[in-house]
C-alpha cells in the first residue's frame, strides 16, 4: 500500500521500535528479569492481503490479546502468538519452571496483561510522539486459528475498503525463552488522514 511515503513508513517503524522498547523496559521491571523485544518487519496491507498473510505466515493455532483503541486513529490492535508457545511465554513471565499442559484462566489473564502492556506502549508512543491523543480499551485474551482469525479480529466489520492493516513482526526473548509473535493493528482509514498529517508534520519539524 502506498498510503505512506518511504519516509513516513520509516518513521512508523522507528516509532514502533521506540514503543516496544518502552514495553520491554516495563515488562523487565515487572518480571524482574531482562525482557528483549525487537521489530524485524512492519508492513501495511489491505484486508484481503491481511487475510492471505494470516493464512500463509501465521501458525495454524494462535493465542492472542485484543484491544480496541480510538483517538487520532481508530481501530483494534492484537498481539498474536503460536498457541503452543503462549504458555511457555506466560511461564517465563511468572518465573514458573513447570510447563503445565493446559492454559488456565489465570494464565489467560497474564497473557492479556502482557498484550495490554505491549499494545498500550506501542499506541501511546505513537500518539505521544506525534502529539496526538489516543484512548485504549481493556484487553481481551482469546484463542483462535488462522482461518478464524479474520472473524476474531472483526476484520470485515465496516467498510473493508477503508480498513488498513499494519502487521508487525515482533521477537520476544526472556529467560531462555525466545519466540516470534505478531502485532496486527486494524486501522479505520477514515482516521488515516489524521495519521498521515501527524506523520507529515512530525517529519516537517525534523527538517
Amino acid at each position, binding site marked *: 500500500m502506498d498510503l505512506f511515503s518511504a519516509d513516513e513508513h520509516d518513521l512508523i517503524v522507528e516509532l514502533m521500535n521506540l514503543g516496544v522498547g518502552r514495553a520491554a523496559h516495563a515488562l523487565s521491571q515487572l518480571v524482574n528479569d531482562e525482557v528483549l523485544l525487537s521489530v524485524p518487519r512492519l508492513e501495511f496491507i489491505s484486508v484481503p492481503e491481511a487475510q492471505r498473510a494470516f493464512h500463509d505466515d501465521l501458525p495454524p493455532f494462535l493465542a492472542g490479546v485484543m484491544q480496541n483503541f480510538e483517538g487520532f486513529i481508530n481501530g483494534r490492535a492484537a498481539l498474536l502468538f503460536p498457541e503452543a508457545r503462549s504458555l511457555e511465554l506466560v511461564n517465563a513471565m511468572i518465573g514458573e519452571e513447570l510447563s*503445565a499442559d493446559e492454559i*488456565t484462566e489465570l494464565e489467560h*489473564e*497474564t497473557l492479556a496483561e502482557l498484550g495490554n502492556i505491549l499494545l498500550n506502549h506501542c*499506541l*501511546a508512543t505513537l500518539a505521544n510522539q506525534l502529539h496526538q491523543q489516543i*484512548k*485504549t480499551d481493556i484487553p481481551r485474551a482469546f484463542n483462535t486459528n488462522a482461518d478464524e482469525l479474520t472473524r476474531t479480529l472483526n476484520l470485515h466489520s465496516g467498510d473493508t475498503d477503508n480498513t488498513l492493516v499494519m502487521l508487525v513482526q515482533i521477537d520476544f526473548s526472556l529467560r531462555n525463552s525466545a519466540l516470534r509473535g505478531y502485532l496486527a493493528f486494524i486501522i479505520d482509514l477514515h482516521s488515516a488522514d489524521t495519521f498521515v498529517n501527524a506523520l507529515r508534520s512530525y517529519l516537517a519539524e525534523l527538517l
Partner: protein
Amino acid sequence: MQSSSDLSGNCPNNILDNLDCTDLLHSLDGGVLLLDAQCRIIFCNRWFCSHTGFTESRMLGQTLNQLFPGQLPPALQDAIETACHQRLGRLLSYQLHKRLLPLQRRTPGGESRPLHQSILIQPLSRSELTLVQCLDITNAVKREQHLRAGERILKLERKVLELIATGDSLDSVLDEICSTVEQLIPHAATAVMLLDESGSQLRIKSSPSLPGFNLREDSLALNGSLTTCTRAFQTRTLAVTHDIRQDESWQPWRDTATRLQIAACWAQPIVAAYDEVVGVFACYPQHTGSPSESERQLLQRMAHLASIALERHRRMERIRFLALHDPLTGLPNRSLLNEHLGRNLRRAHREGQQFALMFIDLDGFKLINDRHGHDAGDDLLSVLAGRMTDQLRGTDTCARIGGDEFVVMLETVQSPESATQVADKILQCLSTPVQRGPLSLQVSASIGIALYPQDGTSADALLTLADDAMYQAKARGKNCWHRIS
C-alpha cells in the same frame, strides 16, 4: 391498541428504562469504582465498602492512594494514573501482581484473609471517567494451585513408572520414590523399609537423604514395642507420630532424630498383591505435625508405586530363577552351571587355584521309575538333590543337567584328595535308601571327577573329561568314583 408483539418488543426496553443503574452496580459481586480525571473516587459500590471496611462517604472524593497511603503497589498506582490522565485501559493480573489492593475476605470460618484479585481499569468513552473493576479470583487461584500440584505429582509419578517399566534396579526406583516425596513435601526426609527374609524385622532399603540413618544393625523388630513404622505395618494404615519427642517408642532413636533434625514420623504401609504388607514408606518432617489431606494422598500413592516396583522386582527375580533352575529339584540348571563354571574358571585362573568338577549319574534310577512310577522317581530325585546340597559349601554348585544326571562344582579344592573325599560322601548319601511311605527306594551313583587345571583348562574339556570318567566308573562296577589321570 398495542398488539402482543409490540408489547413483547417494548417490555424489555421499559424495564431497562426503569432500572436504577446505581442499584445494579451495588448488587454486583465484585468491586466497582468510578474515578474522575484526577483519580478521585466519585462512585464506589457496596462490595468495595464491605471489603475495605470504609464507609461510602469516607471513600468519595478520595484517591485510592489517599485511602491506602503507602500500601498501593507502584504498578497499580501507575496504571490508575495512566488510565485517568492518558486514557489507556489496563489489566493487572494476579500472576504478575500478587498484591494489589489491601482487601480482605471472610472465610466461611469467619477469619479475615487477603483477597486474591485482578483489576481492570477502563477509561470510559464520551466522558472523563474511568471505571475500575476489582475481581475476586480467590477460587480461581485455589483451582490453579490444585491443578499445578496435581500436575506436578503426575509428572513425578510418571518418571517413577518409567523407571519401573524400563527395568531400572529396585534400589534406584525406591530412591527415586523417596526423592519425589522429598520434592513435594519440603523439609522432610523419607525412607523405604522392607520386611526382611525372616519376616520378623523391618530393614531400611532406601533412605537417600538420611546419612547415617542405618537400621541394618538395629532394625525394627516387629514383635518388640511398637514404633511408628511397625504400628503402620501391623495396623495396615497410615501411622502418625506428630512429635517424636513426646513418643516413648522413639526413645532409642532420639539422638539420631535430633542429629538428623527429625521432628515427626508419618508411616504408610506398603501393601503388595494379595493384601500382603511388605514394608513401610516413612516420611520424617523437620517440623512437628500431622500430614495434610494432600500429603496423605501423596504418601498413599508413593507407597502404592513402591509396591508396584517391589512386585515387579519379585516377578523378575522369579522369572530369572525359573530360567536358571530345575523346577523339580530347585537346583541350578545347565545354563546357570555354565555361568558359574565360566566365572569360576576365570577366578581360579586369576588366583592360581584348583577346583573340581564331578559328573554324577544315578545307577538303577530307570528301574525305580519303571517299577514305582514317575512320581516316586521325582520324589527320589528331590530328596537326593537335597542330600547332595547338604554335603557342599554354599559357594559350591550342584546342578541337575538331565533326567538323573547332576554336575557338582567344588569352587576350590586344596588337593585332589579333598575332591575325592567329597565324592565319597556324595556316594554314601546317594546310596542311602529313601523311605517313601512303605517303600524303601535305593539307588547308587557313578561319579567322574575332573580337576582344574591338571585335567583341563576349559569348561568343555573339563565337562567332557568328567563325563568320560563317569562312564569308566560305571564300567568299573558302579557306586564308585573315577578320575582319568
